[in-house]
């Protein structure tokens, strides 16, 4: 185990053993968090008919919702009502989901991952069960959207955080595997939901889904808090290459933190760590991500409608999404494996920049795809790019920040990303409507993502350089102080010197 990691975390992450069970738990939790809202679209047609809902009736729900809905309502010509309802529930879900980010960070910092995930699972479950008795569309939105959304948020962040505590050397692989939960659960839930709907109608399905989602509690049970045998270790002079960057990157951070953390090496009692905003790597990540999310999800949302627009029938269009999920499923663990190799791990930020850029290029080339075969090809390439990006999304944040502060970082990041995630699809939709053609939307997304890729590449080049410089400086400084300490020890005021050093 590289000693630099120990000094940073205060303990030795197991990198295996029970860690793999935790990865399984994270797989399930993350899977439900991302895939569950998307899979509910099967029910929308009947729910909408049942409640005879029109857009104007529910427009008063909240002013934030109103703004988004009007934005979304502008582009209704191209799409049917079901799709709008789709967006509506997705928006409410995302609202709760993303805005609950900081809340779950605080809770994880205080109580650890396990209780938060189990409570989250209970919340989603009870939300769905309550929704199955729903008598109005508002009831549904509150239960599924708000309670469900919060519950899912309480599943996502703790899962990511706990993987970081169990793994260091194999962390990219563990993250890649955990993130694979999303396409796998989506792939399983979509046909399952259709089957449930055919057998039990939407009410019965919601009830049964409430039970299925309770498996998040099983995932939570697996998330045993990692055993931290705390031992203060002196910083060694020769840390091996893999964690060098890591230790150095967080070293400047740790020097600030050391004074405040003092005895409490293993615990992170801070609520929300606003000092993260001074962290260079964090700022790069944040700025890049905020812009990136405007263009990231829109192509996924519009893939099937675009296919139908090209004249492809409904089933083949839906099949494109299955292809997308299938490719995604395999690419994520592969990316994790690649990210773990000794060539890529030290410079994993470049790998992430490449993934973002790849996404951009993929969308820019999309309008060239002709016919169903062209679209299938685009879907496969897009699936690869998207999978790569998602597998690395949180790994690079952990790489920049370190596992200790990850919880707070992810909370801050998600609440700030709330905006672009919610606004992205409606703005893209407005683009499609304004030009009457999908290709401008693809160009826009492609440009945004390529630009972000280049931004990340350039900024991380600069960041790596600065970190290397800082590490050299801090190593030199340590050498100097330890030499001085040796000299001072020989002198009678050694006690004073000790305090000055400590």
């Amino acid at each position, binding site marked *: 185990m590289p000693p630099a990691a120990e000094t940073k975390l205060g303990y030795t992450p197991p990198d295996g053993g029970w860690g793999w069970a935790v990865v399984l738990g994270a797989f399930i939790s993350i899977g439900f968090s991302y895939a569950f809202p998307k899979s509910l679209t099967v029910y929308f047609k009947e729910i909408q008919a049942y409640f005879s809902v029109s857009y104007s009736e529910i427009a008063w729900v909240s002013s934030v919702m109103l703004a988004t809905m009007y934005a979304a309502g502008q582009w209704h010509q191209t799409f049917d009502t079901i799709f709008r309802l789709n967006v509506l529930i997705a928006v409410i879900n995302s609202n709760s989901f993303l805005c609950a980010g900081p809340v779950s960070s605080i809770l994880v910092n205080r109580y650890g991952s396990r209780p938060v995930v189990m409570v989250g699972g209970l919340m989603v479950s009870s939300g769905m069960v309550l929704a199955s008795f729903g008598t109005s569309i508002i009831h549904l939105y509150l239960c599924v959207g708000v309670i469900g959304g919060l519950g899912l948020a309480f599943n996502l962040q703790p899962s990511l955080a706990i993987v970081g505590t169990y793994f260091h050397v194999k962390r990219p692989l563990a993250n890649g595997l955990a993130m694979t939960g999303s396409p796998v659960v989506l792939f399983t839930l979509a046909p399952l939901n259709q089957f449930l709907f055919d057998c039990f109608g939407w009410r019965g399905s919601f009830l049964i889904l*409430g039970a299925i989602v309770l498996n998040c509690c099983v995932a939570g049970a697996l998330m045993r808090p990692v055993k931290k045998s705390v031992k203060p270790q002196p910083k060694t002079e020769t840390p091996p290459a893999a964690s060098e960057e890591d230790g150095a990157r967080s070293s400047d951070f740790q020097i600030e933190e050391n004074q405040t953390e003092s005895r409490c090496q293993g615990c992170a009692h801070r609520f929300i760590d606003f000092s993260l905003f001074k962290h260079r790597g964090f700022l790069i990540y944040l700025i890049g991500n905020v812009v990136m999310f405007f263009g990231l999800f829109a192509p996924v949302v519009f893939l099937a409608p675009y296919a139908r627009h090209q004249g492809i029938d409904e089933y083949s269009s839906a099949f494109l999404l299955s292809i997308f999920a299938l490719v995604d499923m395999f690419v994520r663990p592969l990316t994790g494996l690649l990210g773990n190799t000794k060539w890529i791990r030290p410079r994993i930020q470049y790998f992430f920049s490449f993934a973002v850029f790849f996404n951009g290029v993929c969308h820019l080339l999309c309008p060239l795809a002709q016919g169903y075969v062209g679209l299938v090809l685009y879907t496969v390439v897009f699936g690869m790019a998207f999978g790569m990006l998602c597998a690395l999304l949180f790994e690079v944040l952990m790489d920049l920040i370190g596992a200790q502060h990850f919880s707070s970082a992810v909370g801050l990041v998600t609440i700030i990303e709330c905006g672009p995630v919610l606004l992205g699809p409606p703005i893209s939709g407005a683009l499609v409507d304004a030009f009457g053609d999908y290709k401008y939307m693809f160009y826009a997304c492609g440009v945004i993502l390529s630009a972000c890729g280049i931004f990340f590449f350039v900024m991380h080049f600069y960041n790596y350089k600065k970190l290397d410089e800082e590490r050299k400086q801090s190593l030199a400084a340590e050498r100097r102080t330890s030499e001085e300490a040796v000299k001072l020890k020989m002198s009678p005021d050694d006690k004073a010197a000790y305090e000055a050093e400590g």
Partner: protein
Amino acid sequence: MQSIRVTVQLENDKYTLRQVFKIVSKENLGSYSCSFGDEAKADFLLAGPQIGEVRDKPIVSYVGDSVVVKCKMDEKKPKPASWNWYKANGTDKEQIFYAAEPQKYEIKNHEWVTKLVVHKLTEGDSGFYYCEGVYAVSTTMGHVELKVITFLEPLKPFIAIIVEVIVLVAAILIYEKSQSKKNSAGGNETNADQTNTPTPGDNNGPEESSSTRQRKV
């Protein structure tokens, strides 16, 4: 079968026959054909618009709940003048009258779509429902199946899954407890399943970790 005989003149090297038929009633629909001696023949089938989208799988709903049964005519075809709804009664079809039982049935027609809302469902309401689009010269029929079940149906898988979850959670937590008992019974031994590398036996280790665990769980 009626037949009409027409003489045509040669125009631009072609013989063209154009005949206008007034479609007044259902009797005027059917198959028409024209033939040019033995050399050419064309057949036409005149029919009223047919109902497009109907759900082929049954609609499932619950006792005491209400349900919306929908029939839709393709928007490219003309709008039906009116709609009728029938419920299958054995081999017969019994028309549903809007006014007769307003608490039970509601019919909402809007251009190409007709919706039958059935309130206070009972198991007897299961079966086939027929929607009939009425045009001046023809009618067209579509059917949808309704299945009414009680809440006990989904409750069975629901409870089964809940039991599975409880069993798994209990098993995992009991396994964990037994592991920790073994470790603390073993004294200063570090937990072999937690760490890869050998760490120096530390008195503070297991105690601190168990207190950490208690605090967090």
